[in-house]
């Protein structure tokens, strides 16, 4: 690109007054800002002892859970929409014929590789029955790669763990949020 390209817009630097040329405003502003922040309350927390406050847990995108309905069955109908929507291809479902009369299929196995997951929330958006949701659990750790592939039992247990703090979002599908 040439300096005289018509698309280049040249902007004049603002002119400084006498005080500006003496570096005085810069001097005072700089020190004032740093001194103020030196004594201002800290925004970080001492993590393991003190949990950070998550603004709205209902919209936070942390570890997944598989929701259960009123009878304690998994809500998932094994439609594969979440696995199709997933950009990281981390959801693996084996769907079999459902033993219950209200749906055709249910997942025999449902596993999510949490190490591949990018926590984008597309699965949550795609799910027609609100079976898969992202919770506000963020401190996800494990000692091996195998451990980080969450199977159906584990995902359902995440639901049991978080259902009181974070109720299901949609009332139309049996959610408790009004």
């Amino acid at each position, binding site marked *: 690109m*040439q*300096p*005289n390209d018509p698309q280049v817009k040249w902007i004049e630097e603002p002119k400084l007054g006498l005080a500006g040329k003496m570096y005085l405003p810069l001097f005072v502003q700089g020190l004032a800002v740093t001194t103020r922040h030196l004594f201002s309350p800290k925004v970080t927390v001492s993590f393991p002892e003190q949990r950070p406050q998550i603004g709205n847990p209902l919209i936070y995108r942390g570890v997944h859970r598989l929701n259960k309905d009123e009878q304690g069955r998994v809500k998932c109908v094994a439609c594969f929409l979440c696995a199709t929507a997933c950009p990281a291809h981390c959801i693996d479902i084996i769907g079999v014929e459902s033993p219950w009369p209200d749906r055709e299929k249910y997942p025999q196995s449902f596993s999510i590789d949490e190490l591949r997951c990018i926590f984008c929330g597309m699965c949550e958006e795609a799910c027609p029955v609100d079976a898969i949701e992202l919770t506000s659990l963020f401190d996800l750790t494990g000692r091996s790669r195998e451990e980080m592939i969450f199977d159906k039992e584990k995902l359902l247990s995440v639901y049991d763990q978080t259902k009181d703090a974070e109720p299901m979002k949609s009332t139309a599908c049996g959610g408790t949020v009004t």
Partner: protein
Amino acid sequence: MTLDALVRNPLTWGTLLFAVGIWLLLPRGATRGWWLGLVITLVSLGLFASRMPALGDWASTGTFGFLAAVTVIAAVMTITLKNPVYCAIWFALSLLGTAGLFMLQGSQFLGVATIVVYAGAILVTFLFVLMLANPEGHASYDRLSWEAPLSAITGAFMVGVLTFALVGVFNPPDAFDTKFSTVEIDRTGEILAGEHMAHLGGQLFSRHLVAVELAGTLLLVAMVGCVAIVAEAKSRRGQPASRKRQRPKSASREPQRPELRAGEALR
């Protein structure tokens, strides 16, 4: 002084061997004889060292010997290595040795000033130029010594004459000793006393005022010359070259700048 005495003096042989050794060590293009040159140079330095007078106790002698060895060996390395950057580093070490020798003699300011001026300012500028001008160091004219035999002989001759004069080959030893000691006593009283800097300054600006002012004037003239050269270069740059286009002063205010027409030059 007879020829016989000269032949039996180890310093004579030291000087001759020094010339030969340095000639062999200097980068002449051919690498033959480098190890021989190293051995000969070390032998000649040993011959010089054999006539070194003892200074007081072992500590002073040891310190002096160490500093002198560092200085001389670093100086030899400075002129015999091929990589200019390494030459500069060895030169710096040689200067540090010189500064140490000055300190040992009690002239603290001279020692410290040597480091500030030579090692700190001049040599860093050298390094700057060396690194910027020829970062690869592949140019053959940088890696060869131009007049190897002549420079080796000249250097050895100067070293020889200085050493002869200092050790007192030309003068009877006792006369030299008394003369040297009186000089030392005078200086200790005047300059090397407690308030070293104050005395030195007083001496410089009273007895040696003319020399100081002359040196200052010389530097001033050099600086004025520099400024003149730079100013001339700048004014030459100001004239429009054949294909170079000047940016008009008002151009920065206008967004379009039609008068620039740099695209034309690109075509």
